[in-house]
């Protein structure tokens, strides 16, 4: 190829070419950075917005306080149910009276029935008048044979009279578990 341009002109053209390439490159780089900044910027602000929302949601600590409140209520109900379902007497006073009456015959008059519950253990006393000593002994034996009672006791002095015998029989009422053990045996 014939070289028609002088060397000076060639040098200028070369410089201008390099300048254009540099400018085009810079322009491209700036545009790319600008696009990147816009994209990252919008992402950043969107994420911040999302965090704001999440923090608002997390701020509602009421959930845990409500749960704690509800759990107190549940515990209270359980305690109430436990109390209502627990039997504190192994025998109700009327059940006891019914047992005494069932053993009573024409020769026995019951004048007093006492029931006491001390620390969930039941104690009872039955007082009365018997026509004869034998009838008191029969009543005592009947009570001794009852699986619900233990420590059935009659003072010897109560047998001193032969007629119109006043008696006082004291006993303890077995707890439900004790009754079950005896039945199993």
């Amino acid at each position, binding site marked *: 190829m014939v070289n028609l341009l002088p060397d000076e002109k060639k040098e200028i053209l070369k410089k201008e070419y390099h300048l254009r390439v540099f400018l085009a490159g*810079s322009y491209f*780089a*700036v545009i790319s*950075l*600008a696009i*990147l*900044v816009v994209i*990252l*910027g919008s*992402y*950043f602000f969107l*994420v*911040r917005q*999302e*965090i704001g929302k*999440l*923090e608002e*949601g*997390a701020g*509602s600590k009421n*959930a*845990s306080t*409500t*749960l704690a409140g*509800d*759990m107190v*209520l*549940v515990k209270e*109900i359980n*305690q*109430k*149910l*436990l*109390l*209502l379902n627990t039997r*504190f*007497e192994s025998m*109700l*006073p*009327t059940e006891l*009276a019914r047992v005494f009456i069932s053993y009573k015959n024409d*020769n026995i*008059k*019951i*004048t*007093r*029935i*006492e*029931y*006491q*519950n*001390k620390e969930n253990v039941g104690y009872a006393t039955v*007082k009365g*008048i*018997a*026509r004869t000593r034998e009838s008191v002994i029969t009543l005592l034996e009947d009570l001794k044979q009852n699986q619900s009672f233990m420590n059935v006791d009659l003072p010897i002095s109560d047998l001193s009279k032969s*007629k*119109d015998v*006043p008696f006082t029989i004291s006993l303890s009422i077995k707890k439900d578990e004790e009754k079950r053990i005896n039945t199993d045996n």
Partner: protein
Amino acid sequence: MFLLGGVLFYLHSGIVKTAKELTDIERLRAELLGQESGVLTVKKSLQNTEVGRREIDSYFISNQNNVATFATAIEANAKQIDLSPEVTLETGEVEIFGETKDILHTTISVSGSFNKLYQYLQALEQIPYKVSFSSVTLASYGQTSFDEKTSSVQTKWTLDIAMDVLSYNTQ
């Protein structure tokens, strides 16, 4: 360009920091969601058992009005069988299930025929409140001889009851 580079660097470090925050928040949110589902389950159970809970509460004396209702119930039971009991009420404390609990200590004195007193005692055993009888004395008076001319119907009996209402909760 330097400015843009600086902005870019700022954004990058901001995003890294935010990502960390986001992870923490997500974890917290997951925890809260778990708690929330627990709350919902408990709430649903409480809603489903509301009628039953109200019934349970009705067996508990929790205020002055309930005390009055209890006293009225005791007297009404007696009135139904022509008895007029003397009732005293006082508060006390007792240990139940290892905890000290308030109770309503009640004493009742009444006289009448054996059958009526037995019936009254039975009615008291069946009152809906949780009651523990600490002592009950059923006694007839005036009988010293076996052949006394007193029929069982005519014989006067007295009934003295000391009982604790355990379903008493004024707190």
